[in-house]
């Protein structure tokens, strides 16, 4: 028969006939056949076989429980103290990190503002640089065009100067030929004719050069 089949709701009626044995679990156990086990734990046997037989003392917590509880209290106190210290430490660290975070955020905001300002300046300078480059290209182009115009004008001036000299020589040659014709008796007819051909050819060449020049002006 299991001890669980016999309720222990009437311990006071049987206490005089059956000794009560307190198991490790702390609950009393009744036994009708076997003698009670010999306990080597003096406090328990003393309590169970006490001549005073003070009832239900078997249900009070044993003294060892109190020492355990005190141990737990100490442990809990130590743990609580540790946790409190830890919490305080974490709070201080958190404050430090937050302070530094705020400082860094302030610097970042300031740097962002500087970067934005610098970017604006860079864009402005790039626009000025582009404008300056365009102006420079335009200026160099104008210099080149002006130099070209000047050189070509000097080419034409040199050519026209030579052409004018040639016309002058043509005119002088024609005047000389006319003078020779006026004094034809002094010269042979063949020499006068040869001079006339030479003068005519020379003046024709000069005139052709002038016509070529005019044609080149029209084509250009």
């Amino acid at each position: 028969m299991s001890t669980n089949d016999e309720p222990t709701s009437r311990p006071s009626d049987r206490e005089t006939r059956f000794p009560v044995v307190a198991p490790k679990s702390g609950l009393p156990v009744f036994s009708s056949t076997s003698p009670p086990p010999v306990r080597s734990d003096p406090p328990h046997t003393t309590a169970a076989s006490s001549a005073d037989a003070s009832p239900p003392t078997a249900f009070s917590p044993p003294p060892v429980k109190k020492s355990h509880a005190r141990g737990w209290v100490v442990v809990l106190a130590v743990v609580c103290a540790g946790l409190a210290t830890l919490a305080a430490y974490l709070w201080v660290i958190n404050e430090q990190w937050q302070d530094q975070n705020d400082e860094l955020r302030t610097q970042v905001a300031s740097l962002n503002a500087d970067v934005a300002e610098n970017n604006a300046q860079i864009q402005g300078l790039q626009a000025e640089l582009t404008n300056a480059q365009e102006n420079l290209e335009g200026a160099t182009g104008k210099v080149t065009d002006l130099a070209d115009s000047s050189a070509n004008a000097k080419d034409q001036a040199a050519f026209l100067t030579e052409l004018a000299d040639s016309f002058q020589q043509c005119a002088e040659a024609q005047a000389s030929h006319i003078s020779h014709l006026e004094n034809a008796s002094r010269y042979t007819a063949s020499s006068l004719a040869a001079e006339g051909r030479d003068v005519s050819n020379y003046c024709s060449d000069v005139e052709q050069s002038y016509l070529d020049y005019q044609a080149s002006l029209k084509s250009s």
Partner: protein
Amino acid sequence: MRRLLLLVPAAVALAGCSVLPQSPPPLPSTAPDTANTSTTPTPSASPSVAAVTVADGFTDQEHAALRIRARTCDEFTVGSGFMLDAHTVVTNRHVVEDAQNITLTTYDGEQYEGTSSVMADFADLALVTVDEPLEFAAPIGSAEPAPDDELDVVGYPLGGPLETRTGPYVKRVPDTIGQGRDDVDLIKVEAEHGNSGSAVYDPNGQVVGVLYATDKKGESFAVTLQSLNTFLSDTSLQLPNDADCG
């Protein structure tokens, strides 16, 4: 007691998994000082800016280029040349041969008068001397161009505005156009009359030839660097250029 035994390893496990946070390290001393942050931007290199090597917008090659007008016995000729030193200009022989007077014009219209000239008979080369000092000088290269080198031809095509035309070096070929005896360089660049005497520059900006002819098919021919160096170094090869207009 068993709970305590369970609690201890649990605490140890928790401690092992986490490290107590430390105080933030001090900010570095090199942290940017917002008050002194420089607002001067660092300029970025621009290819278009880098291409301009001088302050007035013209390149060194353009500075050294000259437009040459020569009055020969029976015509005017226009060609190109480049400054060799303060008093010497290099051009083609056929530009100044039999010239009675030679006029040289710089990129900005400044004018010089040639006082004398000499020619080569082995290549289409000539030197013109000026009294007034020239302001620039083109560096003569030390190495011949290699195939596919991009070469610049700087001169005055058709006697017009100064131009720089670029094309790859092709190869060395026999001279079948001019009257020279030396081989010449073939360059794939379109040139015009008036480009004769233009300096041919390698990618390093050094003269590696003197343009003297074109086939009108997008290919041009240049006197080689070797011929130029021979002509410049040996004065016995510099023949007088006396105009005989008979």
